[in-house]
């Protein structure tokens, strides 16, 4: 009823090519972003920022990177955690080895290093695909896990093997309170999401999707698979590298290689599968699902238990949490194998017609 395009006529290709061609969508997005920047800091307490919102924002950025590669270019990866690690450790090394290095520059350079590493480890994708490629990218995960654990140079010879960085200073704004961290990550995420949207609706994104959907036809119309695949690896790793640097610098402060283990890679892959492959919104939905749901369950289960008059132990809560979380994943994948983003899109289609059935 309110969400309808009747009477909205586009008179130029420019109007038709906008990122959000429907005005209602455009306003909704603007409202959400404004609310995230102004409303949320007024409403939320420190715990929410630290435990939920900052991890959510950074992992969304990482999921965006994975989605570019897996969802849009069709190249599966199990080395997402490794790309994050390269970003984090490269940014750390730029910080400690170059005096007066601005943190933001270090983070972006970390992203570029991750992109370079991503290109190298993306080379197998030119020959193999599917499960074989997954195994090949797994090699990058193990290699970088090993490198950051064993090669002391990367950790600046720190005795414990863990590295730490001081608070980021951004043009005189010291980012140390949870609110600052949230706003900084939000800013980065908004900029990177817009860039991803632009890339994906343009020539680059079409080339990636063409390679994903039908690579022979893509080569015949002049797309070079090598260029398309390696740029997808580079851009995806760049996003992951920046996310990794933020994870280390902003979320953790000090970290060990275990922060970017194979668990992280799998977590990111699950996020984009559950959220929706090949949809930017899927990265947001997936990250929200994976980050927020366990915490939500953790908080509410004891409450539910006390209502039912049961004595719920902490161990039981964590077990039940896993069970519910796992079954919800299965549920979502059965109901909508294309992820939450597709459910959302279907819902929107229905909303356009509501209250009429057709």
């Amino acid at each position, binding site marked *: 009823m309110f969400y309808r395009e009747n009477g909205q006529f586009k008179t130029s*290709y420019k109007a038709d*090519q906008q990122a959000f061609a429907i005005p209602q969508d455009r306003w909704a997005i603007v409202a959400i972003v404004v609310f995230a920047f102004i409303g949320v800091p007024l409403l939320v307490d420190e715990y929410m920022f630290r435990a939920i919102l900052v991890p959510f924002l950074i992992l969304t950025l990482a999921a965006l990177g994975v989605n570019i590669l897996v969802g849009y270019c069709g190249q599966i990866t199990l080395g997402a955690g490794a790309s994050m690690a390269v970003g984090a450790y490269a940014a750390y090394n730029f910080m400690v080895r170059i005096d007066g290095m601005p943190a933001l520059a270090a983070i972006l350079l970390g992203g570029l290093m991750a992109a370079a590493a991503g290109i190298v480890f993306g080379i197998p994708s030119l020959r193999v695909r599917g499960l074989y490629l997954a195994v090949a990218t797994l090699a990058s995960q193990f290699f970088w896990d090993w490198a950051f654990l064993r090669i002391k140079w990367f950790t600046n010879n720190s005795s414990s093997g863990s590295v730490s960085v001081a608070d980021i200073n951004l043009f005189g704004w010291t980012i140390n309170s949870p609110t600052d961290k949230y706003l900084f990550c939000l800013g980065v995420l908004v900029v990177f999401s817009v860039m991803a949207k*632009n890339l994906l609706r343009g020539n680059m994104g079409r080339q990636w999707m063409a390679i994903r959907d*039908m690579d022979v*036809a893509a080569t015949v119309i002049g797309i070079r698979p090598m260029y398309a695949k390696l740029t997808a690896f580079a851009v995806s790793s760049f996003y992951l590298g920046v996310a990794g640097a933020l994870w280390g610098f902003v979320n953790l402060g000090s970290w060990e290689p275990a922060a970017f283990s194979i668990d992280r890679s799998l977590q990111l892959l699950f996020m984009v599968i559950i959220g929706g492959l090949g949809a930017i919104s899927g990265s947001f939905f997936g990250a929200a699902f994976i980050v927020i749901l366990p915490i939500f369950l953790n908080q509410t289960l004891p409450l539910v238990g006390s209502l039912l008059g049961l004595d719920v132990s902490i161990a039981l809560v964590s077990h039940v949490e896993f069970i519910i979380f796992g079954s919800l994943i299965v549920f979502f994948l059965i109901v909508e194998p294309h992820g939450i983003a597709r459910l959302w899109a279907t819902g929107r289609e229905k909303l356009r017609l509501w209250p009429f059935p057709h």
Partner: protein
Amino acid sequence: MSGRKFGEVILDLKNISLSFGGVKALQDISFNVLEHEIRAIIGPNGAGKSSMLNVINGVYRPQQGDIILRGEHHANMDSYGAATAGLARTFQNIALFKGMSVLDNIMTGRNLKMKANMLQQAIWFGPAMREELEHRAKVEEIIDFLEIQHIRKTPVGRLPYGLQKRVDLARALAMEPQILLLDEPMAGMNVEEKQDMCRFILDVNDQFGTTIVLIEHDMGVVMDISDRVVVLDYGKKIGDGTPDEVRANPEVISAYLGASH
């Protein structure tokens, strides 16, 4: 068909041989294509027609022979080279990008002409947007030409077969090719769809002056629209000439109808 002007030889295939292991798909085949003509390749199943097309646009590389395109040797060309040399093709079993809309599929056909770099595309405003709009206008002309305005935003996976074939042609046309290779453009279509497709092929040839090489099984269509026909059988060329000549060729008749021994 008389009265139309053909140009020089645009594509010359000389002694092409292609084999896969022990299977000789093409044996010593030579023929040429004149500019602006409609050239058909026919033959029974397994005659090597699709292999021939794949050789022309660089999907397969022949073991022997030479491909001369506008006077230049192209025997070692790959598909990217073929695309840059002005060759476009459609596929027998439609090879559209299923996850993308009709518009995006056709826009992809213009990727070689789009020059904005990745950073410009990420920023969008400026060169990337200008370029995108320019090419959108061109693509809309093709959409109008092929009468698919109503489905431009539809994901191609949802379209019926006949329309998918048309989108496949649209994507090839978006490359503004000099030579258009059509692999069974009318396979699996009903009579109306075939008539539409014939009309489009003739219009493309007429209005854009595009040279067309097509493979087709429907003899009525082939004899009606093509200027010259090559007949293949078991990887060998058994006939070459105008439709009337080919029809009268005894070897062709025996390949199609079986010879009395």
